[in-house]
């Protein structure tokens, strides 16, 4: 089973994992929203209905 008790080091281990998860989630959100925006722009430029 996972050992989640970090003892005296919890103040360093959890923020390290937390910030990694946050930054990676932000990367996914940023790249996907840029991809959606570009697809909408292309659909509009080609005269297709972006919806």
């Amino acid at each position, binding site marked *: 089973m*996972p*050992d989640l008790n970090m003892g005296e080091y919890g103040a360093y*281990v959890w923020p390290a994992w937390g910030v990694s998860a946050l*930054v990676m989630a932000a990367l996914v959100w940023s790249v996907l929203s*840029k991809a959606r925006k570009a*697809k909408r722009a292309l659909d509009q430029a080609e005269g297709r209905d972006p919806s």
Partner: protein
Amino acid sequence: MFGLANPQRFMSATRRLPAVLGVAAGLLLAAGVWLGFTAPEDYQQGDTVRIMFVHVPASWLSLAVYAAMGGASFFALVFRHPLADAAARAAAPIGAAFTALALITGSLWGRPMWGTWWEWDARLTSVLVLFLFYLGYMALRASIDDEQKAGRAAAVLALAGLINLPIVKFSVDWWNTLHQPASVFRADGPAMTADILTPLLVMGVAYTVFFAALWVTAIRAEVNQRRANALALRAAGGA
């Protein structure tokens, strides 16, 4: 391979790739998290060794992404290839994020192990310089309106920054630093036991696949955006 350098062929060949890579990255990350928290604590570092499972892959990717950006910039500059320029541009923010993660998680590991959040030693400073190269690349691209000129200027900066990669890698051998020397990729094998090495390698592969999924998606977005801009410009010119 070179057939993929054609943007249209690239778009059709990579249509399903982001989803496949994304699922693979999710599964690998889940396995890495499980292995990372079931691994035994280190006899010297205690539970702080678990920071290694997020710090070291982020550090590997900070270098690998810059190398990819530099390689793409070379092709963009020498062969004026638009897909290579799109690839370099798409890699920059992802590489900057991994480098920021390497710096932040390294600082969180350094405090309990070295007794300090930051030290101006060769490894830490050269990684900070790497981060500044990423920021400089993005700032330069954003500051020039002409897309082609911006791409060329940024490519020159990216190529100049390649010199920093061996400095980061070998800084722990060339200078006395607080940072430990390489402990995985060594001539005489990894300096850690399998129960620590396995989660580290799984996380390393997971971060790499995660980057690949994001990079392909970002390149595809860049190609779509450029095509949309070109069509809009043509429509405005014809109006």
